[in-house]
């Protein structure tokens, strides 16, 4: 996700339903009492500067954090690329990085972050196994691309090389993730959409769009290529030059044939393309689908047979953080996983890393709708109290296990990154 989701985040205002929030605050503050009170008092004066993307850089979270722990969070929101750059080059400008796993793959080896001691994370053992073993259930496959567990661990506090196995030192504490797919306008498409290849169906000529963020766009294109049976990739998240050539050649061919109406780069663009009917099938992000729907326009986040392209993010600590500040950082991470934030994120259609604690902060109806894929028992409200889904609706793609269990690849950074970007530019310029 990049800058587009920032807007989605902003829309989710700080207000929330009173009763639940009060309950949340009560339980939330209860959840942190296990810590030595000596510094729990001092921590109240501490400010942590968090740099992150708009996905989770939300004021509501900062306010709740202040209320529950006393720690002041100073949020700086930027897009994925700017964040990568800042984390790599201006290490002292932030204390906490709220960053994606694909970005940490580039950034962690630079050596500006410190590993997180897993033993100090209360709920570490409850973290969804996607982030630890890479398998949602013991039998699931590990998806292609930069799977979070492959860049989640290092050997010790100062090591910069990732470990293939779990260790006691984590690069990030996972916080938020989701599975992305195509968005469609069911009112303007008469046939069922089942596969990624439907994006290039000539029936939708001039009405399709793909996102123009090279690293993600090319993976959506790869999903289409595989779906058409044109190419099998060894790893869609780490293509060879030949695979990149084939994929971009295919995209150029489609572009020449007039398949695409436009390419989008920001959240608003994707929403407007879809809402105006310029485009009826395109790569999309889940809050953008919600934004189209909130205008009263039908939009489906269509599950596809080949599976999803997933992304995940987490919180990391900058190397310079030490002493009381470091204690506060750990307290913040523990608070983050203690449930309130998890529920807040789940309610926006994302997923939280520790599900058990988030469940405590959600009503059974909410849990059933968002996580179990059951029809909504009551109207489902957004965190700002606005109606999100009417009673009776079922979440697109179904339950957590159905959606996260069908991940085909993770957002990633390729070894041939530089070459890929050149070829992508060629495609856009063609």
């Amino acid at each position, binding site marked *: 996700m990049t800058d587009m989701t920032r807007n989605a985040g902003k829309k989710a205002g700080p207000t929330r339903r009173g009763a639940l929030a009060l309950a949340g605050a009560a339980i939330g503050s209860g959840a942190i009492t296990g810590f030595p009170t000596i510094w729990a008092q001092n921590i109240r004066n501490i400010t942590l500067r968090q740099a992150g993307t708009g996905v989770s850089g939300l004021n509501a979270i900062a306010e709740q954090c202040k209320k529950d722990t006393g720690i002041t969070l100073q949020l700086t929101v930027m897009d994925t690329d700017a964040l990568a750059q800042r984390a790599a080059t201006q290490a002292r400008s932030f204390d906490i990085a709220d960053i994606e796993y694909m970005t940490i793959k580039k950034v962690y080896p630079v050596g500006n972050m410190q590993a997180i001691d897993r033993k100090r994370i209360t709920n570490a053992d409850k973290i969804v196994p996607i982030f630890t073993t890479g398998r949602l259930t013991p039998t699931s496959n590990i998806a292609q691309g930069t799977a979070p567990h492959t860049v989640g661990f290092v050997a010790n506090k100062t090591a910069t090389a990732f470990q293939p196995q779990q260790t006691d030192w984590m690069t990030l504490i996972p916080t938020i993730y989701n599975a992305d797919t195509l968005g469609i306008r069911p009112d303007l498409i008469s046939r069922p959409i089942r596969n990624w290849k439907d994006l290039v169906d000539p029936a939708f000529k001039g009405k399709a769009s793909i996102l123009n963020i090279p690293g993600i766009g090319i993976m959506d294109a790869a999903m289409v290529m595989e779906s058409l049976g044109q190419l099998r990739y060894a790893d869609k998240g780490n293509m060879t030059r030949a695979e990149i050539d084939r994929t971009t050649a295919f995209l150029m061919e489609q572009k020449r044939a007039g398949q695409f109406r*436009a390419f*989008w*780069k920001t959240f608003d663009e994707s929403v407007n393309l879809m809402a105006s009917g310029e485009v009826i099938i395109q790569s999309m992000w889940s809050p953008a689908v919600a934004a189209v729907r909130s205008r009263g326009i039908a939009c489906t986040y269509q599950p596809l047979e080949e599976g999803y392209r997933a992304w995940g993010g987490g919180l990391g600590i900058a190397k310079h953080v030490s002493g009381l500040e470091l204690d506060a950082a750990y307290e913040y991470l523990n608070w983050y996983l203690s449930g309130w934030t998890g529920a807040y994120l789940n309610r926006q259609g994302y997923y939280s890393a520790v599900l058990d604690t988030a469940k405590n902060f959600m009503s059974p109806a909410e849990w059933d709708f968002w996580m179990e894929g059951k029809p909504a028992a009551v109207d489902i409200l957004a965190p700002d109290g606005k109606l999100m889904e009417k009673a009776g609706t079922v979440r697109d793609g179904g339950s957590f296990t159905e959606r996260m269990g069908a991940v085909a690849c993770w957002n990633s950074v390729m070894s041939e990154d530089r070459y890929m970007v*050149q070829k992508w530019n060629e495609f856009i310029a063609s």
Partner: protein
Amino acid sequence: MRGAVTSWLLAAPLALVLAVFLVVPLFVLVVVSFYDYDSVRLIPDFVFTNYIEVFGSMVTWRTYAKTFSFAATVWVITLLIGFWIAYYLAFVIEGTGKRTLLFLICTIPFWTSNLIRMIAWVPFLGRNGLLNRALVGSGAIDQPLEFLLFSDFAVILAFVHLYTLFMVVPIFNTMMRIDRRLIEAAVDAGAGFWRVLWHVILPLCKPGIAIGSIFVIVLVMGDFATVRLMSGGQSASVGLMISNQISLLQYPAAAANAVVLLAVVLMMVAAILRVVDIRKEL
């Protein structure tokens, strides 16, 4: 002697500002264009890879060709429209008050930002936009016209809308300085409308045309937002190429591209200034 010191002191603040905010950044730009880089870091070095990639890639040439064609088309259209608007304001309208009023009306679009003026075209030109709905509704066409939005047409339309005033203002300015007696003399000597225009007004407007042309060409050559928004990301320009590289942290590549673009634009400006000596005629 004291006069010389005073002049130096008077020039110093501007020189300092230009040195710090123009010369130093440009120098850094040139230096960085020889750096190497990986996905997150700049690696200080002296390599020609970035330039080899710029010149060796077909994309660069095609993108430059596209950008030139945008610049040329927009220049011709804005010049034609701008010249006649300026002519109308300067020679047809009588009375300073009325002229000033009409001139101010020309600037109304500039009361909002560039971006908003550009985006405003989207709901107008779209598939279900105002224009298409009007045309389909009136029975003029059966199918909405798709080329109106997210196309080169849309890009040029937006450019013309955005930049015509930059042509109008300097041309109008030079026209107002033309000594009206010259025109009277020409008419008295028997010259017709076109002859006056061609032999009197046009030559005297050259500095204005040159300044307007520099504005328009420089703005179009360096643009990336208009091209991206109005073409729906389907078209490329040099500015867009650079902006893509920056967003992917490929600063040295972007710097090399910027240095090349800067050289190209400077050459274009030099060519214009060679044809018209602005200083002599102002």
